[in-house]
């Protein structure tokens, strides 16, 4: 059950995710090719506002995009409607945001002062 608002939110987040995914893959290949260790990777990400914004915006886009997609499946396949549908969609969004945000924080600023 998509309205224009949800449709646009899903398309715009897809637009954000596409270059970030390519960037992530490129960095992964670079890191593997160069033989960077975990410590070396963390040394580059810790305290970096750029990496925080890069992965932070990806997590934000994924949370919105996936929640809207799952919302459609919940409605069309399982018949979930109304408050329950909104509640489950927002919960999934919050879950993905929480888990993803925690991971991004961990590799950027969590241990920066240590």
């Amino acid at each position, binding site marked *: *059950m*998509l*309205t*224009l608002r*949800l*449709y*646009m939110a899903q*398309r715009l987040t897809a637009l954000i995710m596409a270059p970030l995914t390519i960037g992530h893959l490129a960095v992964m290949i670079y890191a593997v090719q160069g033989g960077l260790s975990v410590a070396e990777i963390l040394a580059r990400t810790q305290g970096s506002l750029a990496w925080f914004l890069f992965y932070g915006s990806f997590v934000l886009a994924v949370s919105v995009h996936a929640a809207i997609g799952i919302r*459609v499946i919940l*409605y*069309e*396949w399982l018949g979930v409607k109304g408050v329950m549908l909104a509640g489950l969609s927002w919960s999934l969004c919050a879950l993905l945001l929480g888990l993803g945000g925690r991971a991004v924080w961990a590799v950027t600023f969590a241990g920066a002062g240590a």
Partner: protein
Amino acid sequence: MSGSDQFLDVSIWREQDGDGHFQQFAVPRRDNQTILDVVAWVQQQCDPTLSYRFACRVGMCGSCAMMVNGAPRWTCRTHVQKVAEDNHLQIAPLRNLPVIKDLAVDMDPFFDKWVAADAVFEPSQTRHDPMAPIDPQDPMRVAASEAIECINCAVCYAACDVVAANPDYLGPAALNRSWSLLNDSRDAGQAERLKAVSAEGGCHNCHAQQSCARYCPNELNPTVSISGLKRATAKSVFSWGK
């Protein structure tokens, strides 16, 4: 033809007051026989209480559509030889619409959605104005022309899995009509139309599975029309305040 090939094994859905089942009939096979011929033979020779709907018999009125071996077809123009499987035909009422009796469905929900999609011409001029010049080569007119041969048969509506999963979805036919009107330079109701097709059951629910295009007897492609509506509504988001 062998002896068994001279008769078709026909299962026809019988339903009254919500209680339905398939009933078997042996129908003589003829050359160039259509599905509507088969249904008419059963009604005239076996059971006059069989209810079904038809009018023109030449593929213009859009009233005789039914499910034939699981697929929606315009029965007056569907030849038995093209759809019979091992001499068997299963004929049922159109999917996604409530049954009135036997093979006749209630078309109200289908046409209610045409109104909900604002798929109604809103004139911008009166009969006293000069006739509006329309260039057939104009891109908008070309887009409209590609969508206007709909006969309202509801085959696309019955074929659509999104309608089956989401009863509020306006469906391919209504949205296709909205698209043809959106490209009509004489129409004055475009802002309301974009709002109507952007609501909860609107064009954005289409998954582009293209069953509508596959089964449309007039070979229209409502999926293309719905994609056009998606683009038009998305553009309207960025033109706020203009």
